[in-house]
């Protein structure tokens, strides 16, 4: 049943995906409103689907697909918060495809693969998953914002008059979106890593720092911290910030991929 709702959500996000491609070439007030409504509707379906998963016993939370679905949900929620604050749908250009991809993978079929070894620490585990995913979602958004910043900067620098009527919000607004999601995401990411290590400690008695998953997670966190610091200290933005954000994003992807070859943090096959 939850898959059905998720597929409904996927359908709605698909409209968002089309919007993302169209928005790159032309501006349509109507279409962006349609995409926004579709995304909101998708978010509702998505929420129902997640509630059903949760209702069916929270061990399932740790399956690959459900966590991807959760990440997509959180990213989309962030997008909505930004829309509420800034009245702009343009971060959707980056967020919609990512959300669509994540939801698509999650909606293909049910894969009851579980983190079986941690079942005795459900509370910490759930806290870990939600915290770290909120951090991920914020990272996705600030990555998106930094790409949009570059795009807008280039348009302004190119002085192409037609770019004056572009779909992008003002440069400083994009910058604020990126910086605020970065600031918001950082504590979540930090706490997520702390709860993660608590879970690991209680499961194994120690934290294996050489495990690729942990190594990459720490790397990602470090880049994240550098980003926050350089921004706060010397106002890095534009190209340098985009470079860092891309680096953090790749590190996050690598940390995620590490689930498939880490010895201690993997979704055990059923």
């Amino acid at each position, binding site marked *: 049943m939850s898959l059905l709702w998720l597929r409904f959500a996927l359908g709605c996000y698909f409209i968002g995906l089309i919007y993302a491609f169209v928005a790159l070439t032309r501006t349509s007030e109507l279409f962006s409103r349609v995409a926004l409504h579709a995304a909101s509707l998708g978010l509702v379906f998505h929420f129902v689907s997640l509630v059903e998963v949760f209702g069916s016993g929270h061990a399932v939370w740790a399956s690959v697909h459900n966590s991807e679905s959760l990440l997509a949900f959180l990213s989309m929620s962030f997008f909505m918060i930004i829309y509420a604050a800034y009245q702009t749908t343009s971060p959707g250009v980056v967020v919609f495809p990512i959300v669509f991809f994540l939801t698509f993978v999650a909606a293909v079929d049910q894969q009851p693969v579980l983190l079986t070894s941690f079942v005795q620490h459900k509370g910490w585990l759930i806290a870990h998953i939600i915290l770290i995913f909120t951090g991920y979602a914020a990272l996705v958004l600030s990555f998106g914002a930094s790409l949009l910043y570059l795009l*807008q*900067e280039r348009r*302004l*620098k190119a*002085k192409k*008059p*037609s770019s*004056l*009527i572009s779909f992008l*919000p*003002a*440069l*400083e*607004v994009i910058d604020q979106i990126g910086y605020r999601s970065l600031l918001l995401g950082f504590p979540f990411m930090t706490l997520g890593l702390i709860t993660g290590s608590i879970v690991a400690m209680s499961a194994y008695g120690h934290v294996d720092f050489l495990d690729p998953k942990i190594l990459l997670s720490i790397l990602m966190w470090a880049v994240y911290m550098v980003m926050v610091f350089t921004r706060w200290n*010397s*106002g*890095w*933005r*534009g*190209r*340098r910030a985009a470079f860092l954000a891309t680096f953090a994003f790749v590190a996050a992807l690598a940390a995620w991929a590490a689930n498939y070859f880490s010895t201690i943090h993997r979704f055990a096959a059923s």
Partner: protein
Amino acid sequence: MRYQLIGVNHKSAPLEVRERLAIPESRLPDTCRDLTAYPGIEEGMVISTCNRVEVVTHTTNGSADLRGFLHDHFHLTGEELDAHLYEFREKDAVRHIFRVASSLDSMVVGEAQILGQVKEAYATARAVGAVRGQLDQLFNRAFAVAKRVRTETAVGSSSVSIASVAVELAKKIFGSLHGKNVFLVGAGKMSELAARHLMAHGCGSIFVSNRTYDRAVGLAHKFNGQAIKFDDLYDTCDRADIVITSTGSPKAIFHREHGEQFLARRKNRPMFFIDIAVPRDVSPEMAKLDGIFTYDIDDLQQAVTSHVADRRKEAERAEAIITSEVERFEARLSTLDVVPTIVSLQDHLETIRQAEIDRVRGRLGQMTPEQEIAVEALTRGIINKVMHTPITTLKTAAKEAEATTVIDVVRRLFNLRQNNSAPGKEAASKEGSNNEAGTRQ
């Protein structure tokens, strides 16, 4: 539809001619009264702005001598005037009014003022009773069309002057301009204008620097800002988000190293340089820095030109809207023309029906309620069935050119009186309510 229009505008007539035709606001009511008193004119109004004088009328036979009216009213001879006049009738007059109200006929296409001016002219003429049913319909529709053009196209949205382009660019960089600081380097008409625009859009404080310090003080005083000594320019410039520079310096005064300093002190918050000076004040090397956005006079000019081009494209879309609206208006008018005929036809038959029932009642005496209902239903049924085809035919004919013929035939066949209940008024009230529904959509 017997609309007739005559006028001059900025394209057809030089300023001297328009000046002689211009009617001061105080004399507009009298002019409207004179107009409706002129032979052949039922309703009339006058739109008089600095770019146009238009006399719009609804006439009794569709060919009133409007030129004659102008000659008489302004005491001008045909030679002086006629070459500059344009005249439109019926559909073309409707189209012209729609275009004027939508600001497509304006000197600066899309400027918003004209709609207000037309509305005022309409209100004035209405107040003296010169505008009634027919022109009422036309202008109500014209206002609705103008609104539609404004919301559905971007004709009115882009601004054209260099100063407003500068404001628009600043908004693309900073979003809201509230609390942003402006630095004026050098004085000049254009930079002053740009500064004024920026302040009007919420910019915070203003700094002024000039090689002649006194001049800076004077200008700063004008803007309620702060004068800065030219020597301190580089130390204070980073406090501004927007720098408008227009010195007469033969060489650039802002170089790459200055830009780097500014950005370092501003923690890389972006800066916007509006370089109006020729030769330029901002070196191209500095313009390349991330976070420094420089637009020189050519860039701004180009942006202005492209706006005009954008507008032209939008104006084409607006014209398409006007064309479809003119057709709609025409179709609706002609449909309405048959309404009085249908109404009087129905009235006529209803009178016959009632008379017949009364006659039968007199012969049959008191009927039971059931019988009453049966007779009622029977007679009504027959009339409705018989009337169905004629009414449909009338309605279809209304949309075609043969409307008047069919109406005539029907009226003669059934011996209906002409103008039995002031059809014009009825039609107008109907049209009015339709209009409102149209606007609300």
